[in-house]
């Protein structure tokens, strides 16, 4: 079965400026419409001195609730999501997001508390975070954890500030100005390095998809801050010389940052802390099943070895001898605050709930199943597509549509054709070192039937690329929209609606 019609209908009767799936709020607007969610307070107007009062018009759309509900219901139905189908976006771990996690996060005791409340009024929340830190430390083999980073990239930047503090303390900071990243690294790695004021040295990958050891060694020196390494790397491969790599960096006085985006391969399989990393972030929106929220929120707890602990951002949560929890005093060497408050608490509650549900055995089973599912899918696809680096993968793998490209069908075309088969496409054109990359991560929560169906769809597309490439290039035909013109979107940016004035 492929994509089917449903009942979504746009707000009837509303005229859109151009043909459209659904009108904009500004098009639904009609002057004089209003709900009554909140009212009163008119006396406020005179309390605000004239000079401060808003004179600019406030042309927010006026719409009543019945129409707002339909509008967002229609919009929602236009989305593909984990709740509607397989979403094998490589590097993103689009696993099932348990509903109990959401229910727990919405309990008043978690959702209706303010970060400026005193410690004794948020003991449950502090304990949850304290215990989550402990779970993550054990899982990663690290010594200390901060839950504050809002996402992986935020953790990367935080970690580089820790590195800076570490080198400063050793009087080394002034000379250490370079961060090494492999050419397979995610874009956030070099971007975080740059935000930290560092230069970036890119090291190439070897023929087996590892960071090239010789090139790495050549790149090392006493001006190196450290190495940012994803493991398994973005090819889905476990670094085969990991300890040598880490040793080399350490010998040069550098530190090794673990990009934990691919931690879903390692739960109970191996602890980054045992492998040579000095720290690692966790994308809980990947590994720990918290919903990706159409782009976010996530959370990126950072787990570090003892040597980096003194520098961790404020506030830190501590446990007193009487069993109560509190925000500790600012550690003297702390880099300071990296955000307003504790972290994306609502997301962390979900992660804690998930880890508590699965437990040690369940987490290990998840990684095991994720690895098995990826290798199984790879086996089903290896005849139709080129395999970027052909060795057993971890929880994901990267194919290349180079062969199809010669038939006139690009990786992007394959992706769009998958939409017509009822699947969300994989990550395309990443990592950059694989031409026409298709990065596929099935996760452990897709049933085997679905993996088989996905493989069948991919293989059908490969077949069509041979026999009828133009049909593949015309995809998608069954999505709400055909391909979008991204070039003119960027050339003539329309970044908000234009209200007729």
């Amino acid at each position: 079965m492929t994509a089917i019609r449903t009942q979504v209908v746009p707000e009837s009767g509303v005229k859109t400026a151009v043909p459209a799936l659904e009108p904009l709020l500004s098009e639904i607007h009609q002057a004089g419409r209003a709900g009554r969610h909140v009212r009163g307070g008119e006396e406020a107007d005179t309390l605000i001195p004239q000079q401060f009062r808003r004179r600019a018009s406030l042309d927010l759309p006026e719409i009543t609730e019945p129409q707002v509900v339909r509008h967002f219901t229609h919009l929602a139905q236009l989305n593909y999501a984990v709740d509607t189908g397989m979403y094998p976006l490589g590097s993103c771990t689009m696993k099932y997001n348990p509903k109990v996690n959401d229910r727990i996060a919405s309990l008043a005791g978690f959702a209706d508390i303010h970060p400026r409340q005193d410690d004794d009024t948020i003991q449950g929340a502090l304990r949850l975070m304290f215990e989550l830190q402990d779970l993550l430390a054990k899982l990663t083999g690290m010594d200390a954890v901060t839950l504050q980073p809002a996402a992986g990239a935020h953790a990367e930047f935080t970690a580089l500030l820790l590195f800076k503090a570490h080198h400063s303390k050793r009087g080394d900071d002034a000379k250490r100005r370079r961060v090494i990243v492999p050419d397979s690294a995610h874009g956030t790695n070099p971007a975080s390095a740059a935000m930290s004021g560092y230069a970036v040295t890119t090291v190439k990958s070897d023929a087996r998809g590892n960071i090239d050891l010789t090139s790495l060694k050549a790149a090392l020196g006493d001006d190196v801050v450290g190495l940012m390494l994803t493991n398994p790397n973005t090819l889905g491969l476990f670094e085969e010389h990991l300890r040598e790599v880490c040793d080399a960096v350490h010998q040069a006085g550098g530190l090794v940052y673990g990009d934990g985006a691919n931690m879903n391969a390692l739960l109970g399989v191996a602890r980054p802390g045992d492998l040579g990393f000095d720290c690692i972030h966790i994308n809980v929106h990947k590994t720990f099943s918290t919903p990706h929220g159409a782009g976010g929120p996530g959370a990126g707890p950072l787990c570090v070895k003892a040597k980096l602990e003194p520098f961790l951002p404020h506030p830190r949560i501590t446990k007193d001898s009487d069993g109560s929890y509190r925000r500790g005093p600012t550690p003297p060497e702390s880099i300071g605050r990296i955000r307003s408050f504790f972290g994306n608490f609502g997301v962390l509650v979900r992660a804690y709930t998930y880890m508590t549900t699965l437990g040690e055995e369940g987490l290990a089973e998840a990684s095991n199943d994720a690895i098995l599912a990826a290798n199984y899918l790879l086996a089903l696809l290896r005849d139709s597509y080129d395999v970027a680096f052909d060795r057993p993968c971890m929880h994901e793998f990267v194919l290349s549509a180079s062969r199809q490209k010669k038939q006139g069908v690009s990786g992007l075309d394959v992706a769009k054709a998958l939409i017509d088969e009822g699947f969300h496409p994989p990550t395309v054109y990443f990592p950059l070192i694989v031409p026409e990359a298709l990065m596929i991560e099935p996760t452990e929560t897709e049933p085997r039937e679905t993996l088989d169906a996905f493989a069948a769809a991919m293989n059908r597309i490969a077949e069509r690329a041979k026999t009828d490439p133009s049909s593949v290039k015309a995809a998608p035909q069954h999505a709400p929209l055909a391909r979008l013109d991204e070039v003119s979107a960027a050339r003539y940016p329309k970044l908000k609606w234009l209200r007729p004035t």
Partner: protein
Amino acid sequence: MSGTNSNPYSPHTDADRAAMLKRVGIKSVDELLTAIPRDALRPRLGLPTGMSEIEVQVHLESLAAKNRPAAAGPFFIGGPVQRRYIPAAVPVLALRGEFLTAYTPYQPEVSQGTLQAVFEYQSLLSELLAMDVVNSSMYDGSTAVAEAAFMAVRATGRKKVVIAREVYYQFRATLETYAKGPDLEVFAVPTDQLAANAGGSACLIVQHPDSFGALVDVRPIAEAAHASGALCVQVTEPHANALLEPPGALGADIAVGEGQPLGIPMSLGGPHLGIFATREALVRQMPGRIVGETRDARGTRGFVNTLQTREQHIRREKATSNICTNEALAAITAAAYLALMGPTGLRAAARNGVAKAHALASRLTAIPGCAIAMDGPFFDRFQLRTQMRGRELKHALAKENVLVDDGLHHEDRDGILIQCTEMTGEEEANALVSAVQRITAGAREAVAAR
């Protein structure tokens, strides 16, 4: 026929696993793990064993019960995070599975729901702030401030950043931490000395209403910034813009703020919504994702992530920010909130805060020894000075289950901070007033007795 999996969300039966292993041509997953050092393979972690959903629910409910929700009594804590009314339709819409469990709309053909909703968020905020362009979200208000400073540094080529001390402490502190990355100089000065410090700076950062609730005359500060080639960054609060002249009309080049009050639960401070807006001329310096309008191959309107050459996945170390995962769901939530409230509802919510704060201020300053700490006009919160230390008074109030904040880490201003919103109830206000009366009277007597 019984659940033998340790992971209750795994659809794989042992038969499935056997079939998959067979297809891969192995007997065990371990055969795939040869790259992992033997001594590091499959460690015991020491984590607890798994639970059933009902057990987890009971456990987590017991933790939740150890927190004191805002609704459980008089509550006046506010600042960047505010207890605001969330219309019932907001979570029903924004938390639909199709929004909640999608990711960044990399494939626009199957992500129009996200893209249009975020485009609408951008449009709504741009109207509210009177700014040309709004991005699709930053992590929170504090990182939006820091990224604004970075952007100003990029735009001006200068490394000095001047921030008002009356900007939220948490925002200032975050900026200071961020500044350690590219080694910026950050100067924190009183708001009224911002203009005087404009020379050579990349930007002046002013908050209006400030962290104490005071109204600030932003125009001269913006003018001073512009006169010396710097940008003016205004830290703003969404509801205030319903009643106050917005950043775009005051001369701000960048407007940033915490968007949580727009329908997002407080959740101990996150996940929230970093608002980030700027002028059109600066858009290519902007951090974060931006959604733009376009057409599809059939001529139908559609939306895409655009101007991506600013972003890390394209530009890597040359990107305007490292942000990837952002707070899109919060942006969608804010869009639903604003659509439901409309201008009338938003104004009413803002007015309620102002009116209640002023009524409360009158009642509190009628108590002997109590005074408003600021001279000028204020918005929907204010600092109250009494003979007691703010912290002491706060603790005394907490004993009566009345929650207030003490100073927001502003080193030389002491007192308690009182935030009002449309949620502030009559009974809560009465409880606060009578508690302050009682407690400060006690303190006066104690002093007199000495």
